[in-house]
């Protein structure tokens, strides 16, 4: 009879625990990372009698957590890819919105500037029109600044996000290491897995994978090793190798992620693939930096081409035009680890060959090698690098100073500083060079009917540019220049004198003279203004295939396309993640209806067992009654 009681008690105890587990499940129905637990019953060993084995009740073999490591792994992968895309898309959308309003971008400013230029061309001596042009130049500069400032703000945010992610990764790694120790201790003491701690650790891993892609490996003692990047161990048992942020060797304002391993510091920025930090780093590399460079390139193109043409003109005071715009010069940043003292100077030599890339120039002790940043393919350079014969490649002219040591390297940013350094230099409306510096005229006394073109500047640096010159016909087919020489006359052919090109057409007679002279008092001349205006549609970028406007349009299209693609990928990844989560929750999630059913089931079993104890009691009473009679 005692064995029946033992059987009953074993059932009571087991169902009590099962009820407790069900209660635990219900209590944690909303707990993040909680895996539903299931009690596994097993029959107690039977007692053997001559006539067979009699069962002796039930016992709990283990409390199992419903967890499928494979499905959980899928959630991790999907989650890390999702949060990478999410952070990328988040930043991309911000940039996209910056460029969203077609009335607020660079295009209307450029157009406003060129319209004002046309107004000056329409009425070159009008001071109000000139003032308006200077105003438009200021607002163009302001637009370049505000766009670049937007990019700078995004860059600062990238740094802040990297710092934040690294801090989060480190604190999660610490927590995982702590849990590892606890799990190893408990599993050793009890011999059963501490389910709730495993859940907590899995949750931490999932949180970690939101920031960075991780690989995990569970050890026999129950501890879990965590790897990041290209196999760097973040957590090994109870030990943590922390990540740190460090300034870029070339550019202190650019943060890199450094792995502080046992064998020294390694830069792991580019090998951190997924997660928030991966998305932020990808954004910086794929969108932010190319966009800043593209904007800078437009600024360089506007300033350089406009300045060159403006210098060929004459202003209202009869002076040659000065530079109209200033633009940030290309930067050459030495690596912090350089041991030599060489200084590098970079300048833009050919706008049409200029790219939006950054470059790395490295010295191996004998020769310099130029590569695009992030690539190892050498770009051929012509020249020797001296001031007289600079290296020339991809539209850049590079002069290297003496004193470089082997292993020294430099980061070249040809277009990055351009937009922030863009400024309108002229304050005086008279200083706008709308006129051409020279004019060509036929003498009033000419007897022939030959005409001369107005004259165009072909070499503004010619010292004799503004000196008067006379073309006199010795006979109808020969002319002299300034009284010297005898040149054969071809109607309509170019005649170049003192950096000025003219054409004479028609039939001159002997003695006819044509003069080229400084355009003194030519305040109504708009020839240079028209040439400046024609720059708007001139194809001067990308090997002569794109205008400034096109350059900016390509930037907008690029940002739009990348954002759009990120959005589409994010949406696809969201459904991948949702599916993975669905599978995961289908295994590990708590279903309250199921728990309600279990509650009923275990309650009934418990009541039945209690009934059993009552039966044993009545058996006792029966027995006792029989003896007491």
């Amino acid at each position: 009879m005692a064995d029946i009681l033992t059987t009953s008690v074993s059932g009571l105890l087991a169902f009590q625990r099962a009820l407790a587990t069900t209660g635990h499940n219900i209590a944690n129905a909303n707990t993040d990372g909680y895996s539903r637990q299931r009690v596994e019953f097993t029959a107690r060993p039977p007692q053997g009698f001559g006539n067979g084995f009699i069962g002796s009740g039930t016992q709990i073999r283990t409390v199992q957590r419903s967890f499928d490591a494979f499905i959980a792994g899928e959630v991790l992968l999907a989650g890390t890819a999702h949060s990478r895309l999410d952070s990328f898309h988040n930043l991309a959308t911000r940039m996209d919105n910056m460029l969203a309003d077609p009335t607020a971008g660079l295009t209307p400013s450029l157009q406003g500037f060129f319209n004002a230029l046309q107004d000056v061309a329409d009425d070159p001596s009008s001071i109000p029109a000139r003032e308006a042009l200077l105003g438009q130049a200021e607002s163009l500069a302001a637009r370049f600044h505000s766009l670049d400032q937007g990019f700078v703000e995004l860059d600062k945010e990238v740094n802040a996000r990297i710092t934040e992610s690294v801090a989060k990764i480190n604190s999660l790694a610490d927590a995982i290491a702590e849990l590892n120790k606890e799990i190893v201790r408990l599993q050793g003491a009890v011999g059963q897995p501490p389910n709730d701690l495993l859940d907590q650790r899995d949750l931490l891993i999932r949180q970690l994978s939101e920031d960075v892609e991780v690989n995990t490996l569970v050890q026999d003692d129950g501890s879990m090793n965590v790897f990041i990047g290209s196999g760097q161990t973040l957590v090994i048992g109870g030990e943590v190798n922390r990540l740190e942020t460090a300034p870029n060797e070339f550019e202190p304002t650019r943060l890199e992620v450094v792995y502080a391993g046992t064998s020294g510091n390694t830069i792991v920025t580019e090998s951190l693939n997924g997660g928030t930090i991966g998305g932020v780093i990808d954004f910086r590399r794929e969108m932010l930096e190319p966009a800043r460079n593209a904007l800078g390139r437009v600024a360089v193109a506007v300033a350089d081409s406009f300045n060159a043409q403006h210098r060929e003109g004459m202003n209202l005071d009869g002076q040659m035009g000065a530079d109209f715009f200033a633009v940030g010069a290309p930067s050459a940043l030495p690596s912090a680890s350089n041991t030599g003292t060489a200084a590098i100077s970079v300048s833009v030599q050919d706008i049409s060959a200029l790219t939006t890339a950054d470059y790395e120039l490295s010295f191996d002790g004998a020769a310099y090698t130029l590569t695009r940043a992030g690539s190892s393919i050498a770009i051929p350079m012509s020249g020797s690098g001296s001031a007289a014969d600079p290296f020339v490649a991809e539209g850049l002219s590079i002069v290297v100073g003496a004193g470089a040591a082997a292993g020294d390297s430099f980061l070249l940013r040809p277009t990055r500083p351009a937009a922030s350094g863009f400024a309108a230099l002229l304050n005086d409306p008279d200083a706008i060079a709308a006129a051409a510096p020279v004019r060509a005229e036929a003498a009033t006394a000419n007897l022939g009917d030959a005409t001369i073109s107005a004259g165009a500047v072909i070499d503004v640096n010619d010292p004799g540019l503004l000196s008067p010159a006379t073309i006199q016909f010795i006979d109808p087919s020969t002319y002299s220049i300034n009284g010297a020489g005898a040149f054969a006359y071809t109607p309509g052919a170019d005649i170049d004198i003192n950096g000025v090109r003219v054409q004479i057409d028609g039939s001159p007679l002997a003695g006819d003279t044509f003069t080229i002279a400084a355009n003194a008092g030519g305040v109504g001349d708009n020839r240079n203004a028209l040439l400046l205006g024609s720059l708007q549609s001139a194809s001067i970028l990308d090997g002569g295939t794109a205008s400034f406007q096109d350059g900016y349009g390509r930037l907008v299209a690029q940002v739009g396309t990348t954002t759009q693609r990120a959005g589409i990928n994010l949406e696809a990844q969201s459904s991948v993640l949702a599916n993975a989560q669905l599978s995961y929750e289908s295994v590990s999630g708590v279903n309250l209806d199921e728990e309600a059913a279990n509650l009923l089931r275990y309650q009934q079993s418990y009541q039945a067992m209690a009934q059993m104890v009552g039966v044993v009691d009545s058996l006792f009473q029966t027995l006792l009654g029989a003896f007491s009679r």
Partner: protein
Amino acid sequence: MRIATSTFLRQGIDAIQSLQSTLSRTQQQISSGRRIVSPSDDPVGAAHVLELTRGLEETGQYQRNGEIARNRLSLEEESLIGVGNILQRARELALQANNASQSDETRGFMAVELREMQEQLVQIANTRDAAGQYLFAGYQSRTEPFVRNASGFQYLGDQGQRLVQIGEGRQVADGDPGSEVFQMIRIGNGVFSTDANAANTGTGVISTGSVIDPTALVPDTYAVNFVTPTDYEVRDSGGGLVASGVYADGDAISFNGMQLEISGQPAMGDSFTVAPAINQDMFTTLENLATALETPTLNDTGRAHLHNDINDGLANLDRAIGQVLEIRTRVGTRLSTIESQRDMNEGIELQLAQTLSAVQDLDYAEALTSLNQQLAVLEAAQQTFVRVQGLSLFDTL
């Protein structure tokens, strides 16, 4: 499949959130009226919008440029009409003065009128536009172009001609330099000019002459010398004999592709010059004419000089009138160029605006339909959420 209770919650909320974000985009589209809210909505379209907006702005600027050029050319045309009228009146006076019935006194009155006209002509040549710029000064639009000095009229402008951009790759001149309108006018018949020697004692009057064979033309200064009252010879500037003949009143004399007539009775030793036509401004033409009319005619020789001078003046006036007409024609051509370019620009503007609208603007009917659809779906999702969340076995325990 097992569904965890939290899955219901998450899926329901996810669905509602995603519907709300779609709805928010539609709302943004409707409130902005733009199909492309940010470049990522349609990257190619967004770049296209920039290009189209720029094109519209640019064409608008061309229209304004064209309007400015049109105003200036209209002003120039007005001025040229004034110049033409004055020259016509001067021509009538010259013809009148050439009439034998006129006396020195009446010619003197005409001279006064001619000088008055000359004044008017100078004023027109120094016309300024509304912005105070001289119309006929070339590039030097702030310099008064025509001033009188001791030796006549001086042009202080230049031969510059300003162009205005009225369309893509299309420029039109917004004026003509004064040198071309008033100053550089060929005298005589445009190729050569004839003149009687001031010391002539006969009554020979030389005609303006004409070119009869351009290929035989040798530009040089020739002298037609009367070796006797009936024999002439033509000598070039080197003294070489070019032609000679017997003179008959009114007969044509031709040499080196040129032909001219001398009428009247030249005396022995009289000489006439035939020289390549030089440029002369129209003020000087009037001046010379007035001076000729003011010179008293004492005898037949004097009358011959007067006739010669008036003939010269008439020829020069005709040249000037021709010049003004030619420039008026050019101005007219430019005005019609501007007109046709304006029509073309309007066409371009319309087309750009239509394309821009097609690329950028929202189709409201479509947007409102999808708004209604999205609202209906969202409401359904919210109701489903509430009903599913209300189900629990515990309620029945």
